[in-house]
């Protein structure tokens, strides 16, 4: 089972680290993680889910889900998630698929933006999924169970390993998810600046990305 690197940056280190190495490290860590055994899928299955999200075959419920999350996320309905469950993809496994498809999309969009080719996935790593459940989740304002009202930071909380990984990537690519800290590159700092990009500039990019994706959260 994948565990987060022991040498991952502390909050203080992450707040002062130079950007490009921080993003690169975070992306390489995610790619490695995506082909390791997860919570409900083996490394091989996660590799296939990633490939399906990118354009690979969609011959299983998990792969169909990955492709739709990646390509047509706004067409997803609660009924369709129920159909996936009837086809063997339980809600927690669905959450893991959502995470995998969303994370690989983040990586691919970044690479397309900076002008480098799409990265190849590493070979899958053998091992068994952890099957670790989070008993502290329930249905609130989402179709998937979460710890409290669903917001981006806890939307994957039914699968804690995915939630932690996604928040790590969010911290490296956007801002550190700490609303109670009003200095440094944190979400709580309304005047944060990163690499010469001011908070309003970051928010303009974020808002326009969401608009183009037809996402109105």
């Amino acid at each position, binding site marked *: 089972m994948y565990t987060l690197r022991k040498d991952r940056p502390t909050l203080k280190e992450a707040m002062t680290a130079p*950007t490009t190495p921080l*993003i690169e490290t975070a992306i390489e860590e995610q790619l490695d993680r995506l082909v390791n055994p997860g919570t409900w899928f083996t490394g091989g299955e996660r590799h296939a889910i990633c490939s399906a999200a990118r354009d690979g075959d969609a011959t299983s419920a998990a792969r169909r889900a990955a492709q739709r*999350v990646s390509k047509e*996320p*706004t067409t*997803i*309905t*609660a009924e369709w*998630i129920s159909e996936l469950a009837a086809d063997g993809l339980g809600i927690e496994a669905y*959450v893991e698929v*959502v*995470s995998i*498809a*969303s*994370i690989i*999309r*983040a990586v691919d*969009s*970044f690479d*397309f*933006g*900076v*002008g480098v080719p799409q990265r190849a996935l590493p070979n899958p790593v053998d091992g068994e999924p952890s099957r670790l459940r989070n008993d502290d989740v329930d249905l609130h*304002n*989402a*179709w*998937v169970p*979460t710890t409290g009202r*669903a917001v*981006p930071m806890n*939307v994957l909380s039914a699968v804690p390993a995915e939630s932690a990984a996604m928040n790590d*990537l*969010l911290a490296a*690519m*956007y801002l550190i998810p700490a609303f109670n800290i009003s200095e440094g590159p944190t979400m709580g700092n*309304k*005047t944060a600046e*990163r*690499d*010469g*990009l*001011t*908070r*309003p*500039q*970051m*928010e*303009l*990019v*974020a*808002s*326009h*990305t*969401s*608009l*183009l*994706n037809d*996402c*109105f*959260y």
Partner: protein
Amino acid sequence: MLRESAQLLGLDVDMKGVGSPTVDSGIPSGRELIAFTEAVVLRDELEVETARVALEAGLGKAAMVRAAAVIGAFEMVNRLMDAAGVGPTEQYRSMGEVIGVPLPQRFD
């Protein structure tokens, strides 16, 4: 957050610039940021190089890399929220009119 952070920096922002590339948002290099975002999200092979060069010319390479990272982060977050069925909050429901883009029917 865009409006709030802009006010703190003393910027006079036209929120319609978020929804329309033809409207100047009032944010420095806003047009270049919007053009780059469109090229990346829409995977426009023809436009992305031009948009990248223009953004780098205006804000520098590090800012261009950061902008690409922010796009990546929200490509991820958008999918997470849509796939989990989390719709707009009450606070966000009023934003459609402000930015000149009404909420789609699926949120009625």
